[in-house]
């Protein structure tokens, strides 16, 4: 559990929130990894979760993952919807018996005093159709605000897990808006107010939201994206044949992001949508199977 002497003071800005969570989970024995360097819809897609959740080896890791949801772009006009935002993810496999106490410790660390607030665990089962993954858990409420998604992974890539991972996902912007009492994400202090160059989240990301929304909804070349989808799909299959699950999985991530962009461009009909999701899921499944084979061999 947390050692008060090494705990930093309560965070006052976005980056301190990240630093606090990293330090906290590092003290819990997690590797602190860096973001996966590809576009993905959620931290779960990071190999540190999707692939490491499978197989017999224990795995504790935490990291920030930029998450891209092209369809959620609002040209910077919605106070809390973004096409690019950050998730902080901790994964503890196998889930330790005191995982909820450890999680509650992280809330204390970021400045949520549980003697002042109302923390509730509300049923929320998680499912990712594209990853063929599901788990049971809760959304964690703080005074009615969803601050975390907590999931015990049961299946990934259609495969039942050997050891159950507890996955803890914080939506950083939303959490920060709550902690720092801001009505819009763009007003969040990114660094400390007493910095030489104090900047807000909007200073850093507003233009990006505007331009990327235009790209996602208006200018993304759909023919090219359809091509990319098919290319990634083919490449993935070829790499699986070569028994290279890690590069193959990157192609699966690529296909998934191409699909998300095409979906945002509104060029995939409702009927086709399901078939694209299934195609991505098939890729995820073969990658997971191939990865698992390497793990079992190594073990």
């Amino acid at each position, binding site marked *: 559990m947390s050692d008060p002497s090494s705990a930093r003071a309560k965070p006052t800005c976005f980056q301190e929130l990240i630093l606090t969570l990293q330090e906290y989970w590092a003290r819990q024995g997690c590797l602190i990894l860096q973001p996966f360097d590809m576009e993905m819809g959620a931290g779960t897609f990071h190999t540190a979760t999707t692939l490491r959740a499978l197989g017999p080896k224990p795995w504790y890791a935490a990291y920030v993952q930029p998450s891209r949801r092209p369809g959620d772009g609002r040209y910077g006009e919605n106070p809390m919807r973004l096409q690019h935002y950050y998730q902080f993810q901790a994964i503890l496999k196998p889930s330790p018996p005191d995982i909820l106490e450890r999680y509650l410790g992280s809330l204390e660390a970021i400045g949520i005093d549980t003697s002042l607030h109302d923390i509730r665990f509300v049923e929320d089962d998680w499912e990712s159709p594209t990853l063929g993954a599901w788990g049971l858990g809760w959304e964690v409420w703080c005074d009615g605000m969803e601050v975390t998604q907590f999931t015990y992974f049961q299946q990934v890539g259609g495969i039942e897990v050997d050891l159950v991972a507890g996955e803890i996902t914080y939506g950083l912007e939303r959490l920060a808006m709550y902690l720092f009492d801001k009505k819009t994400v763009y007003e969040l202090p990114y660094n400390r107010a007493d910095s030489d160059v104090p900047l807000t989240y909007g200073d850093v990301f507003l233009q990006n939201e505007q331009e990327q929304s235009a790209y996602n909804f208006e200018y993304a070349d759909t023919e090219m994206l359809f091509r990319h989808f098919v290319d990634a799909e083919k490449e993935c299959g070829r790499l699986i044949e070569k028994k290279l699950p890690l590069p193959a999985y990157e192609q699966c991530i690529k296909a998934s992001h191409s699909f998300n962009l095409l979906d945002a461009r509104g060029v995939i009909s*409702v009927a086709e949508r399901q078939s694209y999701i299934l195609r991505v899921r098939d890729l995820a499944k073969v990658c997971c199977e191939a990865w698992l084979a390497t793990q079992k061999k190594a073990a």
Partner: protein
Amino acid sequence: MAELLLELLSEEIPARMQTRAADDLKRLVCDGLKGAGVGFEQARAFATPRRLTLVIDGIPASRDDVSEEKRGPRVGAPDQAVQGFLKGAGLASLDQAEKRDTGKGEFWFAVVTKKGGLTADALPGVIDAAMKALPWPKSMKWGSGTMQWVRPLQSIIALFDGKGLKGEVAPGGQMAPIAFGATTRGHRFLSKGAIEVSNFADYTTKLRTAHVILDPAERKAIILDGARKLCAEAQVGLHEDEGLLEEVAGLVEWPVPMLGTIDAQFMDVPPEVLIVSMKAHLRYFSTTKADGTLANRFVVVANNVARDGGKTIIEGNERVLRARLSDAKFFWDQDRKQTLEARLPALRQVVFHAKLGTQAERVERIAKLAGEIAKALPAVDATEVEQAARLCKADLVTGMVGEFPELQGVMGRYYALGEKLPAAVADAIGDHYAPVGPNDRCPSAPVSIAVALADKLDALISFWSIGEKPTGSRDPFALRRAALGVIRIVIENKLRLPLRPFVKADDLLAFFAERLKVQMREKGVRHDIVDAVLALGSEDDLVRLLARVEALQSFLSTEAGKNLLTAYGRAANIVRAEEKKDKGLAAKIAGAPDAALLEQAEEKDVASALAEVERVVKPALAAEDFAGAMKAFADLRAPIDALFDKVTVNVTDKPELRLNRLKLLNQIRATMDTVADFSKIEG
């Protein structure tokens, strides 16, 4: 006599599963006790978000040997049956069983003796079996284990007569077994450390000190009382919602109701939006002003006693609500910038069902049907029906309904009113999904009726056409509800709307008949009477059908009705018995009897009574005067009774006479069957 206390402590159990799980635990352990020959007086089960608790009183400390007999298969039965019997009885071979003649042949019997002994020795097995059999709607494994439970299981209290039972549950993998013990934990935030208990009374007292109210009924009472008090002080009324109360009681171990305020800027958003937003997303109770309209206060139930008296919690919740309602207000403002009419093209992009096309196509079908239905309704404006039908699904592509699907229809009505469309059109858009349940209100305005019926009939006809019919347990498209909706709208509005022109498939019409029977049974109408009227086959006018049923039911409750039914039964039985002997008879006795062959006065009386009945009944039926028709039947009773007294039907030496008398009896049956098939009525 001693007490068994069982507590299964876990991480947070979904609210919707708690009550059921506690009941299941009680049932399984009690069944286990019975199976082990252990008696008890009373069992009570409780659930909180973190624990299932069972206390059973009046269990004897030991039990006697019991021997039990099990009958097996017939001697000489196939080996499979024998093996099943041996396995079930716990025998190794048939040498351990005995043959006995039951009078219906020789059967194998097993005499199984259950050893008695200390109850404490039997209980761990019962608990273990109950836990394994407990049917969670969804369960999971955790850590390195393989055990399935709703969420990770943390500890078990198993005390019998104040002493710990020996036992444990193994989650598997590398995880330590969870031993039966005498300790639990209190509230997640308001209590620290383990709590040791000695019996149920001690347990509940200590839990209370540790800020856990064990009994869900008590938590509900605390929430309700607290919420009412807060509301009274704020001079608003609490909107009491039993489903929400149940759920909230399952989210807290120590309920603390608090009163918050809705920001004034949102009070012009439709109240339904505020209520749904508060209830579905935040589990708040809404409140009302003296005139019944929505007040600007809400009740949130916290699971904590905060050291600032709840100030932070209320502020936090108000902030969250503000964010939620900002979204809602944004949709409300945005949605009104576009008319419903202008949204229609977007319905072409929304798939209703893969085999049934888009919502746009569905709307076309509904409009066509609504138009036809409107022709059968008095005083309805066909233009309004057409407009309402075309616009009824337009709100599906608004931002608000995208966010709150449960507001479909409701929002369409508001947007239509905002556009100054006729009120009847707006109301029909709002009402067309109704009734959605047996207690939901039925549309009664003509335009609403037309569109609501068209919506349901289209769903039924369409899903029927692609073979998606409900089965015993599966009804994914809620077609039973749709059929019941049609029935209620027609009957409650007394609509003269024959279904046959709309419902072409015979089995769909039969489906309506089935739903009607279920609905009438719930209203206390005898199902055999409904069957008797339905057996006429041709009746597809529900109002007329109901009138027939009512007339028949009241007729049959009179002395004359009962006697006539007996007479009918006698006549029908004789004819049927004769028909069995002679396959060609039915054809021979069709039609009226030959007057010249009516010998006895009693025969003649019946014939003329029948003629009189026919004379009266035909026009009565045509005028739908079913009570009048029944009354005419009553006059048949005396002559028929006399006929049975004095006349022998099966006169063996005069075949023509016999045939003519059978004709007469057959005619009694035929005449009565014009109002209902009396053979379906149970005497």
